[in-house]
């Protein structure tokens, strides 16, 4: 019975063991670790904020205008003798509340656009790569043309036409109109490679239909790559939305990070030295982008074992 030293039981892994493996992997892959850490910090910030702060004060005229942090609010001298943690902006918004409310909104836009973009992109990529022929020609041509037109132009056209009462979800939808193009192209390339794999051939010879092959054989193996693309997609979606909002083409009533930047520009906060107003959104955006970038790098390494540097 050659079981003792010749085979090992890999099938049973306790939760503790899995947690240990995950932690060990994170140590080996610092990009992923730091990226996740940054997002964890943002998440905690928002969660604690909603639990302990009066987030309603993101609205204009919640307090006196132009107040520096902890400066006494002459409009509410009794209740707000110690002012606000991050002060207020020109229109009386509590900056801290704006941050707490705005972060999830911006992330929401990114997530909606990213998810729609990846889903549409993946579907089109699979159809083009697997079936080939004229389907591939049509989709590839649209994708190639779409990639050469600057996304911002398309977005401006869309946003201008949707101007009246643009909501956050609508913003997400608008950005998704351009978010699907790049994923479609990169995932198509991956599927083209995967289509030639031996196990796909065997599945076909075992009677698996085209659709099942795409869904059951190829998709699970592409999951890490699609995950990494999703993160990249979300990052560019956030960037696009912030860009639009800064130009004044966003949801005016929502305290998204981009809209905050817009108001900063409108009221020349930098010239007036209102660091508590332009500082936080820039810092948070930096954290978001650095975090997303590191996560993409980390996921890249996970989905491509050849990049692994250490055992």
């Amino acid at each position, binding site marked *: *019975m*050659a079981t*003792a*030293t*010749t*085979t*090992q039981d890999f099938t049973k892994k306790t939760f503790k063991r899995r947690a240990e493996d995950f932690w*060990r992997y994170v140590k080996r892959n610092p990009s992923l670790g730091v990226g996740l850490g940054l997002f964890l910090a943002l998440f905690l910030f928002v969660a604690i904020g909603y639990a302990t702060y009066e987030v309603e004060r993101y609205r204009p005229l919640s307090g006196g205008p132009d107040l520096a942090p902890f400066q006494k609010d002459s409009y509410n001298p009794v209740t707000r003798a110690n002012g606000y943690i991050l002060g207020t902006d020109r229109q009386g918004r509590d900056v801290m509340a704006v941050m707490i409310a705005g972060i999830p909104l911006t992330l929401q836009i990114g997530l909606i656009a990213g998810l729609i973009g990846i889903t549409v992109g993946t579907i089109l990529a699979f159809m083009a790569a697997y079936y080939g022929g004229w389907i591939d020609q049509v989709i590839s041509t649209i994708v190639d043309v779409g990639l050469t037109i600057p996304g911002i132009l398309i977005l401006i056209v869309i946003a201008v036409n949707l101007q009246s009462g643009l909501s956050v979800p609508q913003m997400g939808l608008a950005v998704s109109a351009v978010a699907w193009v790049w994923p479609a192209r990169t995932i198509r390339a991956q599927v083209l490679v995967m289509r030639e794999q031996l196990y796909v051939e065997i599945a076909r010879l075992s009677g698996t239909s085209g659709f099942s092959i795409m869904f059951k054989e190829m998709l699970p193996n592409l999951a890490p790559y699609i995950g990494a693309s999703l993160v990249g997609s979300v990052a560019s979606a956030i960037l696009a939305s912030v860009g639009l909002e800064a130009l004044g083409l966003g949801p005016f009533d929502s305290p998204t990070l981009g809209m905050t930047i817009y108001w900063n520009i409108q009221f020349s906060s930098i010239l007036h030295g209102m660091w508590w107003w332009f500082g936080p959104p820039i810092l948070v955006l930096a954290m978001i982008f650095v975090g997303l970038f590191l996560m993409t790098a980390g996921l890249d390494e996970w989905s491509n074992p050849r990049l692994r540097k250490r*055992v």
Partner: protein
Amino acid sequence: MTTAKKNSKKSSSSNAGVGIDVQDLKVHYDTPDGVVKAVDGVSFSLRQGERMALVGESGSGKSTLAMALMRLTRAPGRIAGGKVIVGDQDLLDIDEEEMRLQRLNEVALVPQGAMNSLNPVMKIKNQLLDGLYDHQINKSEKLSKEEQVEIVEKLLKSVDLIPQVAEMYPHELSGGMKQRVAIAIATSMQPRVIVADEPTSALDVVVQRNVMQTLGRLQEGLHASIILIGHDMGLVAQFSDHVGVMYAGRLVEVGPVKTVFKSPKHPYTRLLIKSLPTLSNKKDFIGIPGLPATLLNLPEGCAFCLRIGQTTPTKIPWVNVAKDHFIQDCKKCADYGK
């Protein structure tokens, strides 16, 4: 200096006639699950001009051993002990710079898939001269254009390639030709020991025969020792003088090729030879039962016993049973498969 003279000059020093002497070589890999003893105390020696083959299945440690002989072991592996004595120099005892000079000059490697290790954007002649330059610089001699052409032509001729090959790029050559170039590079400094790791495994049978004959002639001309690593027992039988059988990182039998093939003393060798198909007659299929051993936390006792389902508690002695013939003498499984 003619080729044979260089090596006979070397052997007139203290360790006359010894090509390479490996003593208790150990190569370990550290993994989070424990230590993997890829090479677990291997000892053998070769005289100048002799041919030895090291055979084993995948996981036996033979390729790891080949790299360790050149001190090319990469992390997470490390050489954990032993000596590799070439001439009168222990290669494991010198510093990195000295070792770099020893490579190609004293010990040369023809790696597995050597044809894929040629630089695709360099002409053959430059690749041949590359190693020479590296060693020449330290002797502060620079070769003139004429000398370069002469050396390149001589090297190509030694592996039966026409001089026109010098101006070609690797992709213009066939598999067999590329392998010959790799052999020419490896022997350009007339090394004392040649380590060939599966030099012909990717080649067709006819090309293989040619390349091996070329390699053999070259080795004889240099009076160098050659260690051939492989898994093709037929090739071993045709090419080498001695053969060493590896299993689970250890040598189980080492001896002259005729005796080992005619009457193997270790059960693993016996089964290995029995399982070989021949072109002479059809016979029943005899495999080796069980699975190749996992090297992770392998216990001290006989590894082959484990394969057939029994255990031995202590380390098995390495016994000299006849002239130049050594085996792992495990009494428990000695008669298995007779």
